[in-house]
């Protein structure tokens, strides 16, 4: 066929003269989204580059909406959308302190569809932070970092990879925050990099390396820009590939293990496309095998179309929601960065506001010795949190039957602790976002902030 990539337009399996007929030789070297047999379904996975990362068959349970909510697929769709919407912005944005702000202003007010593209990029970035966090919560609450039945499973390592992917997502968001070079950007980065500077002994050097000098200036902008468009997306893409590869190596989602553990080795009709040893079908008059859930026909479905259709729906749905939201939500652009005036109040991006709350409250005084809250709340506490997250699969001693089960009874205590931690972080985020006014004083949401003159 002259155009193999068009082959899906054609109903496959139509007999053509000259097709070989011998067993094991495929009559059609191409594939279809609408396979009419298991073989055609398998052919799709084997022949198509985009599909070859998927298994030929997946467990029915792992496709359930109410198990995974497809949050991982949603995160990947958002990452894809961020790359797509970032590409035109790359042509329009100029990473120089003299021109960055005006180029964003051009994108916002001059470029056709520029404002919408920027909003898509921004909404998708915020959504990605949310969805990736929810994905982590789902994996924790289902004990999906645990190993169930398979040989050579290393789900705990995939959890570790996932934690690093979450950190990369936050860093991507934070580096993107500086690029407009407006007041919001400048002071968020001032506070963020001064947290790094609060590390004892090496802090000032770390900050100098981060911002390329002692003040936030052109070297800072170009550093954050290169990190944002090359280094961090590249690292996230590489980890994404590894994350997916590990899912395959671990035998699919953790709920598959639950299925396998729940009905281990039942008698089932032999699968005609499989080969068995004679011992496997020794008993009875009709061919019956003792098969695990993973090789029984009623628990497994073909990846094409069942998995592919759902993944496409999630991806399209995500893109649709973000695109529509972006028409309603305009991206803010404050005054141009002014190192001389700190806005009042000066806030970090919302997903860091719980940290800003903590750095406000954690300055420790022991006698005449004072530890800066920036170091306690900005370095030690988040560091401990990430360390605990990374080590949790080895701390969790629950039985393997708790793998891939929502709120398993054996994991009740840790699930509760985890949920409380999440609620604590959410509360601090809410307080920081809604209730902090000028001079970081507490105001109720319905209270009006006092007028503070812009300069003294």
């Amino acid at each position: 066929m002259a155009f193999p990539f068009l082959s899906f337009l054609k109903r496959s399996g139509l007999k053509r003269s000259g097709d070989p007929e011998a067993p094991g030789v495929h009559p059609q070297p191409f594939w279809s989204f609408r396979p009419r047999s298991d073989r055609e379904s398998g052919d799709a996975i084997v022949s198509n580059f985009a599909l070859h990362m998927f298994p030929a068959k997946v467990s029915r349970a792992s496709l359930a909406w109410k198990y995974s909510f497809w949050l991982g697929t949603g995160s990947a769709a958002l990452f894809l959308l961020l790359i797509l919407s970032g590409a035109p912005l790359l042509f329009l944005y100029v990473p120089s302190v003299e021109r960055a702000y005006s180029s964003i202003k051009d994108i916002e007010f001059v470029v056709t569809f520029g404002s919408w593209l920027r909003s898509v990029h921004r909404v998708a970035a915020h959504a990605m932070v949310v969805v990736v966090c929810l994905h982590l919560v789902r994996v924790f609450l289902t004990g999906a970092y645990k190993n169930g039945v398979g040989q050579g499973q290393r789900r705990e390592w995939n959890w570790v990879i996932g934690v690093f992917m979450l950190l990369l997502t936050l860093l991507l968001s934070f580096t993107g925050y500086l690029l407009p070079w407006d007041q919001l950007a400048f002071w968020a980065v001032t506070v963020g990099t001064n947290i790094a500077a609060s590390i004892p002994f090496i802090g000032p050097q770390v900050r100098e390396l981060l911002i390329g000098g002692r003040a936030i200036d052109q070297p800072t902008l170009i550093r954050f820009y290169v990190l944002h468009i090359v280094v961090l997306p590249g690292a996230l893409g590489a980890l994404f590939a590894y994350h997916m590869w590990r899912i395959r190596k671990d035998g699919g989602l953790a709920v598959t293990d639950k299925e396998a553990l729940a009905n281990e080795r039942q008698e089932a009709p032999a699968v005609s496309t499989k080969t068995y040893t004679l011992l496997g079908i020794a008993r009875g008059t009709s061919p019956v095998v003792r098969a695990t859930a993973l090789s029984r026909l009623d628990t497994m479905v073909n990846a094409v179309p069942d998995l592919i259709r759902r993944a496409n729906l999630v991806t399209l749905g995500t893109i649709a929601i973000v695109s529509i939201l972006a028409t309603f939500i305009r991206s803010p652009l404050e005054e141009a960065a002014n190192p001389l005036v700190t806005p009042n109040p000066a806030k970090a991006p919302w997903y860091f506001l719980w940290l800003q709350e903590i750095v406000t409250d954690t300055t420790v005084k022991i006698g005449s010795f004072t530890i800066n809250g920036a170091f306690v709340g900005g370095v030690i506490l988040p560091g401990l949190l990430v360390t605990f997250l990374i080590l949790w699969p080895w701390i969790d001693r629950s039985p393997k039957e708790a793998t891939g089960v929502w709120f398993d009874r054996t994991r009740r205590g840790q699930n509760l602790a985890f949920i409380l931690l999440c609620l604590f972080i959410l509360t601090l985020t809410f307080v920081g976002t809604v209730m902090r006014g000028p001079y970081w004083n507490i105001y109720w949401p319905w209270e009006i902030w006092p007028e503070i003159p812009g300069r003294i």
Partner: protein
Amino acid sequence: MTERKDRRDFMMKAGLGAGVCGLGLQAAASLRSLVPNVSYDAPTTVKLGLPTEFPDGLKFLPDQRLFVFREGKTFHAISAVCTHLGCTVRAEAMSQPEFRELDGVKTRLTHRFMCPCHGSKYEGDGKPVSGPAPRALAWYHLSISVDDGSLVVDLAQEVARDFRLTLA
């Protein structure tokens, strides 16, 4: 036979070592290039203008992020950079000036300082009283330039709270 195996073994290790060294040095050189050798930051010794241009009380200099206080013929300068995370603090005039001994020098305090980022509050001499600020605001050295008589601040030289520049 062993001689041959040793040779292959040696070549393999030499190749591996060369690869590791090559990549390692490339990586080290790349990282080192990102550490700046020259700072193009603003100079730390700055002329602030003639002393007569300063009003009695407080003047805020946004470029230096500095408060300069004048009480008749004596001057002192306090940094406006919050010691918590480096935001610029704002001065708020007090309704009644307060007189206080600072390291033995009687001083009139007219303002207090508040940070918009995390709510640190400082007294008029820069002492933190609430909020997360771990240290007092820095006091900087003031002098008079010999060529044109203008006030000069040295932002690299912190001084104690009894420092005053008194004009003749």
